[in-house]
């Protein structure tokens, strides 16, 4: 059994079926890509996985336990972190503060010890700052660490958001279009970071991405969605040859 099991997952908004009985298994340590044309339900799937949407049918099992009905912050506690398609950083805070927020679950000081800022609360701030600086080093964003995120260029923001997710020390990392809108160089940087995360930190990664070059290069397995239905799953080579996938992407030959 995989680390994450998605079983016959369905999601409806009124009459619109966003996900229709999707099955998917993600093994531990795997880099699993989810692809499909626009509106296929990829982001909806992510929103179900991290608790923003509650699925209307089916189940999601993490380590064999259902997480489908949990709230987002509970799922975060179980080790699921994500990035968003349209960057969802806290724009007015600095890079450091954004990453420290990623450490929120690993810190414990409450309002009283925070207000005193002495002893344990202080130690905790410093320990987590060290951890955050490791991530800053890893992602090569040292130069902007004190800048408010809102002032940073798009490519760097994407990186900061990845950093915030990493700060959670996740077991499963959900990346929603990590290289969207990037040039070749930036894309290669991100791809390299993603592979490093998978290999060095042993994190399981699920990635939604439109850039087929990146997906085919780095993914271990690929799931293809179309109109909320899973139409294929397999290794990159298998997916490239799958007639249903070609049909969904390119349409039928006249």
């Amino acid at each position, binding site marked *: 059994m995989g680390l994450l099991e998605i079983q016959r997952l369905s999601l409806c908004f009124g009459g619109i079926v966003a996900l229709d009985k999707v099955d998917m298994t993600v093994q531990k340590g795997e880099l699993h890509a989810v692809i499909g044309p626009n509106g296929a339900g990829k982001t909806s799937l992510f929103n179900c996985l991290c608790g923003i949407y509650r699925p209307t049918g089916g189940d999601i099992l993490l380590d064999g336990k259902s997480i489908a009905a949990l709230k987002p912050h509970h799922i975060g506690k179980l080790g699921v972190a994500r990035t968003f398609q349209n960057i969802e*950083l806290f724009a007015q805070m600095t890079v450091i503060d954004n990453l420290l927020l990623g450490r*929120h679950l690993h810190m414990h*000081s409450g309002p009283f010890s925070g207000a005193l800022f002495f002893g344990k609360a202080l130690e905790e701030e410093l320990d987590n700052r060290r951890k955050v600086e490791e991530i800053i080093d890893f992602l090569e964003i040292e130069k902007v660490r004190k800048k408010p995120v809102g002032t940073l260029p798009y490519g760097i923001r994407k990186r900061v958001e990845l950093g915030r997710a990493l700060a959670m020390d996740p077991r499963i990392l959900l990346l929603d279009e990590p290289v969207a809108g990037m040039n070749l160089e930036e894309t290669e940087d991100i791809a390299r970071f993603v592979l490093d995360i998978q290999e060095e930190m042993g994190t399981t990664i699920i990635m939604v991405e439109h850039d087929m070059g990146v997906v085919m290069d780095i993914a271990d397995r690929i799931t293809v969605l179309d109109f909320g239905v899973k139409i294929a799953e397999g290794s990159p080579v298998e997916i490239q040859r799958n007639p249903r996938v070609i049909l969904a992407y390119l349409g039928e030959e006249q």
Partner: protein
Amino acid sequence: MRSKTFRESYREDIKVFQTLWVKLWLTTFVAFLLSVPLWADPYVIYMINLAGVSVIAAMGLNILTGFTGQISLGHSAFVALGAYTSAILATRLGLPFWLCIPAGGGVAAFFGILLGFPCLRLKGLYLAMATMSFGVVIEYTVTHWESMTMGVRGISMPKASLLGISLGDDARFFYVILAFVLLLTLAAKNLVRTRVGRAFVAIRDRDIAAEVIGVNLTQYKVISFAISSFYGGVAGGLYSYYMGYLHPENFTILLSIEYIAMIIIGGMGSILGAIFGGIFLTVIPDVIKAFAELLGQHLPFLQGRYDEEWNIATFGALIMLFLIVEPTGLNGIWGRIKTCFKNWPFTY
């Protein structure tokens, strides 16, 4: 001239008062404040005391509205709750003032939590309406629950005293208010730069992302309501002791709007902003009055026309002006002045 500071550890990096200069400057300023009752005019002391109370209340509102992004138009209700709790405990049970003021804060915080829960799912305009209604309910209650609050007859407060020393006169109560202001400012500053404060800002900026990274929205919104109303309650308690007389008319919705004006003009989401705003809006009515009298001397048709409505109109105009021209408030202006001096004589 100092341009950049080189820091050697993370401990140094997160200090509030970074350099020796800042510490020296601040110590001098506090020493100066401590000396104020010795030489200042009673009117100046009176204004500073009132400003101190406003600063505490505005800081509370800024934690809720400025940092957590939950608009509250009912902050006067918490000030009223604190004021009346202190007054009732002091007059009926004869409790000493150092117990009554925290108790006022505690009761206000309790009601803040009660209000926080139903308001969890409300945002923006709807939240403003809900909190405003709460303010109206509290105002109505203190006016009409005569057996408890004496209604429109008001409550006369006993003089505060500590260890047998009377703190009744303005100059002595100045130190009480100053102590509360310093303590609560420090607590607020620490709060907003640690875990809980960061979670507040996260909720303000992106609540969905905040939840995904593990911030429990319910818990933190309620904590924010509680802290904010605690500050309001303490301000109310201080106010009741300082003025010596409580009347429901002191706690209308206009007071809530005044607090909103304080944090907008001072600077949303900044501790210093609440201080600037609290002082500024306490002083401005007297400035307007003086200005009106000056105008009256030269323009006969304005002679003696000044009344309280002028203040309200000015608050409104100031809110608009700041929202359009300087959304970061006085705090933003202060920041620019500082940067300008820091970089002098270079332009950037």
